[in-house]
């Protein structure tokens, strides 16, 4: 038992820190885009945890706050391109909300490289792969979000 615990501790010490990224994506575009990346056997960084929601209009700013509270180093919010929303206007509403929320988060001093927004359609698997790879590299350079984690 003791050796097991020591072994676990040992691996934890040895494993380099990897960023934890939470992605809130819409069911119809970005999730399908990420799915296409998977079915096309594209490889990308495994640091992203995808949370699927029906629409970007369903993404409450509290989700993003909660993700940071629970230890995310970065949050990605992604949905259908303007004009492509499955529910016609969900992403337009979401865009308005983000314009306000983005400004608020910047005003309280959160590095906006840790909170990113994108439009990824169901066919843009390559865009998704690039996005995640770039985001992971960027956040890796920034390091863990200690400011929030030590609250």
């Amino acid at each position: 038992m003791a050796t097991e615990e020591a072994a676990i501790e040992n691996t934890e010490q040895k494993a380099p820190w990897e960023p934890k990224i939470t992605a809130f994506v819409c069911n119809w575009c970005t999730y399908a885009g990420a799915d296409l990346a998977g079915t096309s056997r594209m490889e990308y960084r495994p640091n992203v945890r995808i949370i699927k929601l029906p629409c970007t209009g369903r993404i409450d700013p509290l989700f993003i706050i909660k993700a940071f509270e629970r230890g995310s180093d970065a949050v990605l919010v992604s949905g259908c391109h303007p004009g492509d929303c499955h529910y016609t206007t969900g992403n337009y509403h979401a865009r308005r909300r983000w314009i306000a929320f983005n400004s608020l988060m910047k005003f309280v001093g959160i590095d906006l490289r840790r909170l990113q927004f994108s439009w990824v359609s169901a066919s843009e698997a390559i865009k998704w792969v690039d996005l995640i790879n770039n985001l992971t590299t960027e956040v890796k350079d920034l390091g863990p979000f200690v400011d929030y984690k030590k609250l």
Partner: protein
Amino acid sequence: MEKALQDKARELLEAGDVKVVIGYGWNKRKTQTTPVFITDPADVERLVFNPLCVNNLSLYLTRQYKDIQALGKPAIVAKGCDIRTIAVLIAEGQVARDGIVIIGAVCNGVVYRQELWKGELTPEIMPTKCHNCDVRNPHIADHIVGDPVDFQPPDDPSGMVYDKIGALDGQEDGDRWSFWMEHFERCVKCYACSKICPLCYCERCIVEKNMPQWIETSAHARGNLAWNLTRAMHLAGRCTFCGECERACPVDIPLNLVNQKLALTIDDAFEYKSGYDENEHPPLIVYSPDDEENFIK
């Protein structure tokens, strides 16, 4: 002006047009004004109006005050800034325009805090909102009392709140973060900011919901940040800068800064200022395909 106000209140009550007049009256020691609810025409002499009338009485029009609603149709004594809040309440369907009588009071500015009053209104004791006020002559009212004043606010908003926002905008992320953490650290989660806000009228606030618990209720830095961000976000495009939240805050968190930062953002992005048109929807409940942003990849 007080005479005109009292006469109008008496007239409305005697005619039976309204059942209660919500206005300002002196406290017992005549050091501060306090909300009064006049139901008897004989009591109208209690109504006063002076620079100590800082409260935003439109709070008493919201549904949480069931005992006031039970009295019947209200008339409310409101400054221009209070009328802006009433306009948002009407726009959001909380108050019917014909369900209330607005007695607009022409205002030359109020004091920032009642304790600062030394018998004379000087610019130093006036809040930022008064220096930028373009509704000293009430813009939506059934009756107006007081002689019209001629006051031109500066083209660009100026004053302490806006200067501080500008200064913070010029700082590094880390400095802003420590500025806010220092302030939010003091938050005791008394929710006075929410209770006094006429636009925080949800019957069940998100902080009261615990299945799931979105916002930690203990006065702890993490939950304090979540609460203050959420409160500000829920007021985005709605806050009319009455400043009551900051005045009510027992630990002096500069809430006007976050609220007005968002108001400036909304004005930049959607060319919308809250509280001027009671028939227009607040910007975050409508949308436009032409909204512009530069941060979505």
